[in-house]
């Protein structure tokens, strides 16, 4: 058997350490009997029991016994490898035994704790488990962990707020960064926006300093009007070819990659009369009209929230739209920058005097007291006078997602400005119709329990952000997954929100799901710091739990390359499969798949697993 050559080299001398874990094991399993049994097993040179193997005493006992009995393999029979394996492996290494010559046997979680009323049977099972561990240990082989150098250069894909922030963070840490943007200018989606929430500065003014810093940074190389043409390699060593419009492709070598390609707003084809009248527009189109100063004359505006979201075209809540609508409603109410194009004769620009605001605040307080908290977002149509700009503003919503401290303040501010929030239920959506060239919103007033009609000059549809249409292409290039909604999918929703499962590739901004600018910036800073770790270390160390291809057996059929979820296998120049150790995670899929039996899983070989499993069946 080629898998196990070491037995000739070095006869196994196995030490078995069986733990009482106080009474956790000792109370339900006859540990002495198990230890005695262990000492009779083939190749066991020494077996002992410890009160607590993981305590100082126990660990010293392992180290001393290795020396005294010349052990070359260690079996610890105690709790779970998921928490304690690293500790015992370090102990072995400290005494000169390779950490891959260690085997863990779980007789606590998988035995004493689950068979608490059957001491005899539990003891028998513990013996069997120890026998299995010893059987495995006999076939262990020492392994070297691979250390791979990392090219200390980063690549950021997407030049929006998040991509720029990530690039700048990395550049400030001293790493050269390639920033690839498919448009001809940096800025991303924010370029299309007029004002931003919580600030009176325009969107373009707000991001200008960021763009300027990126432009000025000597560590950042911009590749505008460009895209990734190809990506080869793995963490620390990516060969990336950047294609430009008509230009020759540029090849760069990078160590880590950040995906920050953003999202696009849904086009609400067939929803709420979109395109049936020039004044039925999306919130994005509204921002564009404001920027171009092309808003038509308005006396009344209706926003419709969740247009296409939450079960209509997409299932999720797009997170930003309520706050975007609140922002736009406030700017209309204030006629910010005279966006409504009001002339002197018509009454001029409305910038609210402080006194009026105070009076309004008091008015609001009174109203609150009157209505109670439960219905606070319910503005009754016609009950109050119009905002000071003279435009009636209504936000039709399922519920207002003005989460957090600042958004809630903005929401209150909108209400102070007499923006009306009217609720609808998903079974009874508001209907937009065009009558004699005029717009009308028909809706069911949930509080008054009656159908109503509201004539308006403009309907603004708050449509959700959806995934970039070409996200799948990038996902395939980088071998990172997309979730069900087409956004990039992080490694772990809670604990690893800016990592991909594939080491070396990270994600931030709206390409991961809807987010506002501040959130995109947090994520970008986080992704940059994650991406900097391998760059700063200068190397990555991979556990030796990788696959190995036997070149004499491999026929180059490529099945393994297809199934590996990490792109850790590739065809060599000879057409034979080879493993990229730094990228392989050791799942074993390729090994179980290879039709030629050419792949061995290090540390989980057939020989080791079969020895362990078959030992369970021995009659004793």
């Amino acid at each position, binding site marked *: 058997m080629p898998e196990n050559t070491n037995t000739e080299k070095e006869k196994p001398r196995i030490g078995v350490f069986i733990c009482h874990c106080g009474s956790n094991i000792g109370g339900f399993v006859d540990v002495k009997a198990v230890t005695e049994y262990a000492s009779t097993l083939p190749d066991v040179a020494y077996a002992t029991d410890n009160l607590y193997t993981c305590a100082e005493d126990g660990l010293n006992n392992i180290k001393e016994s290795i020396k005294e009995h010349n052990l070359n393999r260690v079996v610890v029979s105690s709790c779970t490898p998921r928490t304690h394996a690293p500790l015992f492996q370090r102990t072995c290494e400290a005494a000169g035994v390779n950490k891959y010559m260690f085997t863990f046997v779980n007789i606590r979680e998988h035995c004493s*704790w689950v068979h608490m009323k059957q001491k005899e049977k*539990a003891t028998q099972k513990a013996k069997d488990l120890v026998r299995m561990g010893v059987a495995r240990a006999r076939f262990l082989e020492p392994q070297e962990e691979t250390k791979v150098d990392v090219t200390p250069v980063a690549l950021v894909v997407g030049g929006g707020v998040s991509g720029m922030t990530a690039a700048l963070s990395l550049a400030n840490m001293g790493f050269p960064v390639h920033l690839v943007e498919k448009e001809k200018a940096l800025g991303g989606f924010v370029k299309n926006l007029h004002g931003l929430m919580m600030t009176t500065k325009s969107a373009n003014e707000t991001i200008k300093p960021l763009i300027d810093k990126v432009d000025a940074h000597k560590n950042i190389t911009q590749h505008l009007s460009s895209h990734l043409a190809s990506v080869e390699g793995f963490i620390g060593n990516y060969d990336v070819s950047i294609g430009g419009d008509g230009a020759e492709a540029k090849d760069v070598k990078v160590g880590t990659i950040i995906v920050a390609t953003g999202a696009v707003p849904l086009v609400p084809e067939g929803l709420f009369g979109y395109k049936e009248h020039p004044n039925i527009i999306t919130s994005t189109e509204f921002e564009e009209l404001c920027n171009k100063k092309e808003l038509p004359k308005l006396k009344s505006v209706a926003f419709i929230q969740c247009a296409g979201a939450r079960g209509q075209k997409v299932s999720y809540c797009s997170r930003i739209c309520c706050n975007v609508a609140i922002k736009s409603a406030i700017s209309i109410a204030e006629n910010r920058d005279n966006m409504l194009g009001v002339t002197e004769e018509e009454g001029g620009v409305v910038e609210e005097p402080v006194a009026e605001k105070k009076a309004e605040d008091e008015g609001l307080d009174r109203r609150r007291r009157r209505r109670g908290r439960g219905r606070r977002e319910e503005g009754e149509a016609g009950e109050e006078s119009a905002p000071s700009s003279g435009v009636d503003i209504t936000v039709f919503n399922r519920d207002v997602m003005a989460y957090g401290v600042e958004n809630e303040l903005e929401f209150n501010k909108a209400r102070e400005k007499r923006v009306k929030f009217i609720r609808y239920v998903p079974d009874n959506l508001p209907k937009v119709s065009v009558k004699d060239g005029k717009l009308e919103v028909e809706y069911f007033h949930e509080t008054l329990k009656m159908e109503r009609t509201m004539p308006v000059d403009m309907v603004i549809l708050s449509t959700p952000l959806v995934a970039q249409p070409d996200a799948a292409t990038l996902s395939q290039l980088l071998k990172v997954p997309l979730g069900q909604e087409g956004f990039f999918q992080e490694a772990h929703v809670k604990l690893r929100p800016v990592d991909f499962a594939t080491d070396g590739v990270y994600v931030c901004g709206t390409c991961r799901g809807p987010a506002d600018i501040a959130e995109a910036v947090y994520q970008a800073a986080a992704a940059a710091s994650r991406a900097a770790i391998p760059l700063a270390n200068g190397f990555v160390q991979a556990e030796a739990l990788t696959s190995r291809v036997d070149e004499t057996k491999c026929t180059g059929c490529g*099945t393994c390359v297809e199934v590996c*979820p990490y792109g850790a296998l590739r065809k060599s120049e000879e057409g034979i499969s080879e493993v990229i150790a730094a990228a392989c995670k050791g799942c074993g899929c390729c090994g179980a798949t290879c039709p030629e039996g050419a792949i061995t899983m290090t540390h989980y070989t*057939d020989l080791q697993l079969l020895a362990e499993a078959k030992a369970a069946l021995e*009659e004793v």
Partner: protein
Amino acid sequence: MTEKKHHTAHHGKKKGEADKEWEPKIVGFLCNWCSYAGADLCGVSRFQYPTNIRLVRVMCSTRVSPHLVLEVFEAGADGILIGGCHLNDCHYMTGNFHTEKRVNLMKKLLREAGIDEGRLRLEWVSASEGEKFSKVVTEFTEEIQKLGQSKVHADDMVKAKVAAADDASETFRLKALVGKEFNLLDKGNAYGDKLDPEKFRGIIDAATEDEFERALILELARIRPMSVKQLGMVMDTPTDRILRHIVLLRQNSKIAMEHPEGFTPVYKTVAIGGEQ
């Protein structure tokens, strides 16, 4: 196919087996990240279950090749449990989708070998499903208790069939088909087309039957040379099918004909490598 309950043992029981009360021997292969962690939580929460199962840890359920499972059955396991993460929760993203396809093949091969497929169970147990783990093990142990002791040690034909199932699972054709199944059916090929799953499964089923029969011929003809007719009888398979297999096996030099004068030709498996 269900197992025949009453069998005349070809070789009798191993000594000692008869007088000891039979206890099911169950092996569990659990993935490190979900099921093994679930089994740990089960322990931490002190949910009790029968003592019959012996657990083997693998990094991912996708590691559990049909060969591992079938060889452990061949060694006498009464039941085998494979535990993985729930679909779409795999630590390695798509590992357990491949596991599912492989388990389908294992079950097919067990059916071919006349072993009740209930002896193999695939369960998704997450790291937080400690109680579920105890339920799964309890139920499975009861089920194996009902199915009774594995016959591999008592009946040479059963053993030969399980060995044949194991060999069949290792053939290029079955491994390549099942290896590509997930990508072809669920992810589409390079052009984004998806195959018709029914059709593809049909292809795998037919291939499984063929490969199993061929492996069984080799298994039986290794023990002693046999004629087409004898093979047909022992295997309960039409002789034209046997003959078709023999022709192919001879082409691939896996089987040799002996034709003593005046006797029907018999076939003997060609020994390869270290085999006798």
